[in-house]
């Protein structure tokens, strides 16, 4: 049995599998390990993504893992004011809601076809480190201990980010940059079947409530609450249950699944590499701090990770100096946007319900062609410049 690889990827979510795919495609020997018994389960995601996000990461669309196409989006203010944008009608590229349990498997399968070996129910429990260089992974596979050596260990282990911490990379997130999330997949709903809805304000302190349609009368109905605003036990679930009770389109619904989780809404990690180790995806804190979306950023970052790892394997050098290329490539793509959206989020969470009402009313009077954080901030910059003055150089 093989015990030495060029690359061991810890975590078979989208970022891990995309890293494994590109590294294997470039000729690296790759092992992809997943601690859960099933890749893509259990769900910890609202599953919304823009089509452009996947395209940028070179992922070809397959209807098998698309739950539904989204015609547009609605932003709802605390007093019920609405900003609604029909993307389909405007001729824009529409977003999608995924079936993550199928999408994640498809990404892992793609890695396998490129030559990656996969092990499920296989958890990393520590790293082998010699003279400041990561040399491999220790763990448990189906209850049996193992230790495998590798040129590079990839921490694609999500928000929990053990690999980074074991390697001495600071991945700590402060309470004002963490959201505690709860979601039901609900059915028998009366909400619009092809619109994503975002409800802002004190109904979800420091975060938002969402409805992401899953086809027909089914949708992901969820909430994120900023940890620094939590004021009662099980706050995320409490605020979500209160909202569902009050909204007649939702109170008729019934749950098919409950999902809990954490989302970082922070700037990216200061350092995503070390000698023989790199971080990718949620572990590298590349979730968009405004939307909480992580799939597109994680996959794009993973393309760079995999390609650089492939080159490192060819050169036989996985030192921090060699991995610097990865650090530069992903930061060029993502860092400015992540910082801008983090600053925008820091501002947004200070706003009162009355100000949010005014923002939504203002946006509904603007001629916004497509719903993106950039377009919304640009519209606010022209109509309410005082709101965005701290970070207007990014807009």
């Amino acid at each position, binding site marked *: 049995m093989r015990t030495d690889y060029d690359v061991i990827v810890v975590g078979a979510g989208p970022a891990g599998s995309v890293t494994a795919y590109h590294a294997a495609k470039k000729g690296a020997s790759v092992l992809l390990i997943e*601690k*859960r*018994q099933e890749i893509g389960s*259990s769900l*910890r995601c609202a599953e919304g993504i823009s089509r452009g996000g996947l395209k940028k990461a070179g992922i070809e669309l397959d209807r098998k893992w698309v739950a539904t196409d989204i015609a547009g989006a609605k932003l709802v203010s605390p007093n019920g004011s609405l900003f609604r944008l029909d993307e389909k009608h405007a001729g824009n590229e529409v977003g999608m809601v995924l079936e993550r349990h199928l999408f994640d498997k498809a990404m892992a399968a793609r890695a396998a076809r490129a030559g990656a070996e996969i092990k499920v*129910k296989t*958890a990393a*429990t520590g790293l082998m480190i010699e003279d400041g260089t990561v040399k491999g992974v220790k763990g*448990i596979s189906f209850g049996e201990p193992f230790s495998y050596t590798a040129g590079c260990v990839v921490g694609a282990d*999500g*928000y*929990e*980010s*053990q690999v980074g*911490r074991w390697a001495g990379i600071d*991945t*700590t*997130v402060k*309470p004002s940059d*963490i959201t*505690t*999330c*709860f979601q039901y997949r609900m059915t028998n709903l009366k909400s619009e079947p092809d619109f994503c809805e975002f409800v802002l304000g004190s109904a979800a302190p420091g975060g938002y409530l969402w409805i992401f349609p899953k086809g027909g009368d089914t949708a992901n109905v969820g909430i994120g609450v900023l*940890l620094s605003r*939590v004021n009662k*036990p*099980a*706050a*995320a*679930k409490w605020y979500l249950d209160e909202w569902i009770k009050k909204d007649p389109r939702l109170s008729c619904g019934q749950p098919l699944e*409950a*999902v*809990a*989780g*954490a989302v*970082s809404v922070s700037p990216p990690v200061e350092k995503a590499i070390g000698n023989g180790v790199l971080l990718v995806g949620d572990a590298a804190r590349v979730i968009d701090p405004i939307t909480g979306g992580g799939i597109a950023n994680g996959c794009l970052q993973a393309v760079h990770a995999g390609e650089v790892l492939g080159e490192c394997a060819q050169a036989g050098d996985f030192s921090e100096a060699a991995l610097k290329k990865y650090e530069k490539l992903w930061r060029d793509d993502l860092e400015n946007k992540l910082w801008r959206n983090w600053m925008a989020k820091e501002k947004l969470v200070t706003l009162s319900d009355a100000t949010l009402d005014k923002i939504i009313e203002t946006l509904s009077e603007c001629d916004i062609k497509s719903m993106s954080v950039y377009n919304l901030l640009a519209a606010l910059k022209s109509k309410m410049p005082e709101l965005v003055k701290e970070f207007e150089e990014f807009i």
Partner: protein
Amino acid sequence: MIVRIEKCMHCGGCVGTCPQNAIYLNEVVLEFNERCNRCGRCVKFCPVAALKLEAKA
């Protein structure tokens, strides 16, 4: 720390939230180690109130 296993959804959010890295989740089993300094951040985070600080001995 008291883990109320009948409430825990094994989401791992407390693991990433812990500033001490005192929590480990192996698929469904949540374990706390001696680094836990009872800061309570995980208790506040838990979306389903599955964690509770033990009264001090």
